[in-house]
């Protein structure tokens, strides 16, 4: 069983399980699936700064903070206890493209440690891959009113056309950054 669980799970197992989160949260107490809201609740709890946007009773939404706390614990269990013994397989074309951009670590796990590990971290890499990237994720999801979970999965499940627009823009932004932005940013980061 553990051996089975340790292998990478195929999309047709993971996707339906993620989809089932939608009815699970609804039936457990009318909660709408959405993760980026947790960032807003943390701001409201820690640095509301008298801004209207953060003046609400975040305690009523604390289930969402438990949910993301659980995701972190699940991340630990999934990577440390149910460790995949094999090296992550990466599509050859992606690996070649990334090598040309200066990425070298393809064997240590889910993320390349030459970009996201402490050992090889530089100020340039941290500013681009952690600070800039994180800021865009936090600012963009709130401006869009949701992220992949709230719009792409919850919104599309409920046939909301604004969520379709948001999802298409997520993808458009991702394609643009991958093909146009990353080559420049990787050079700026000194790769």
């Amino acid at each position, binding site marked *: 069983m553990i051996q089975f669980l340790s292998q990478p799970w195929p*999309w*047709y197992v*993971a*996707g*339906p399980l*993620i989809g089932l*989160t*939608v*009815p699970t949260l609804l039936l*457990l*107490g*009318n909660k*709408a699936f959405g993760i980026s809201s947790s960032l*807003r609740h943390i701001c409201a709890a820690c640095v509301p700064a008298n801004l209207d*946007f953060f003046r609400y009773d975040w305690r*009523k*939404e604390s*289930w*969402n903070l*438990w949910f993301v706390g659980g995701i*972190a*614990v699940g991340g*630990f*269990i999934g990577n440390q206890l149910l460790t995949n013994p094999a090296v992550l397989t*990466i599509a050859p074309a*992606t690996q070649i493209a990334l090598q040309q951009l200066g990425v070298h670590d*393809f064997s240590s796990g*889910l*993320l390349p440690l030459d970009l996201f590990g402490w050992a090889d971290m530089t100020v340039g890499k941290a500013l681009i891959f*952690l600070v*800039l*990237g*994180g*800021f*865009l*994720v936090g*600012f*963009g999801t*709130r*401006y*869009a*009113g949701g992220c*992949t979970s709230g719009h792409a*999965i*919850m919104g*599309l499940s409920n046939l*909301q056309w*604004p969520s379709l*627009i948001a999802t*298409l*823009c*997520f993808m*458009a*932004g*991702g*394609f*643009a*950054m*991958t093909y146009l932005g*990353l080559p420049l940013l990787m050079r700026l980061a000194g790769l």
Partner: protein
Amino acid sequence: MISEQNSKTSPTQQRSKPNWVFGLVGVVFGIVFVKAEIVSWFRIQEMFRLDSFHMYGVIGSAVFVGLLSVQLIRRFNIRTLQGDPVAIASKQFSQGQIWGGLLFGFGWAITGACPGPLFAQIGAGYTAVGITLLSALAGTWVYGATRKHLPH
């Protein structure tokens, strides 16, 4: 058009399972995230480079199952465990879905993570991503501080 974001914050007091139950759902969710490698920067790069079907299969089948579930709940008037009718707030269109959506897309391709995977990556042991999370909180805060001046 900012009513949607306000309505989200003042939900009618609903009866619900205690918070720790949602923590448990999160644990299962986090395990799926890691084991299906959805939190991998490489998988997100494969997706945007159209080199693998994996992420499209994950998101597509998740939407399919979610859609089917919501339709079944509606069709059969399934109620919550507390006996309340299931209520889902509808999404209002705003320009934010375009501009914010594009900005998030940029960040998604850089970090290889949406907000959920950020938490999973940190739990998985990639502690430098803690800086990414702090910066995402800063981004959310700056949106809250500047939203009056942004097109909606």
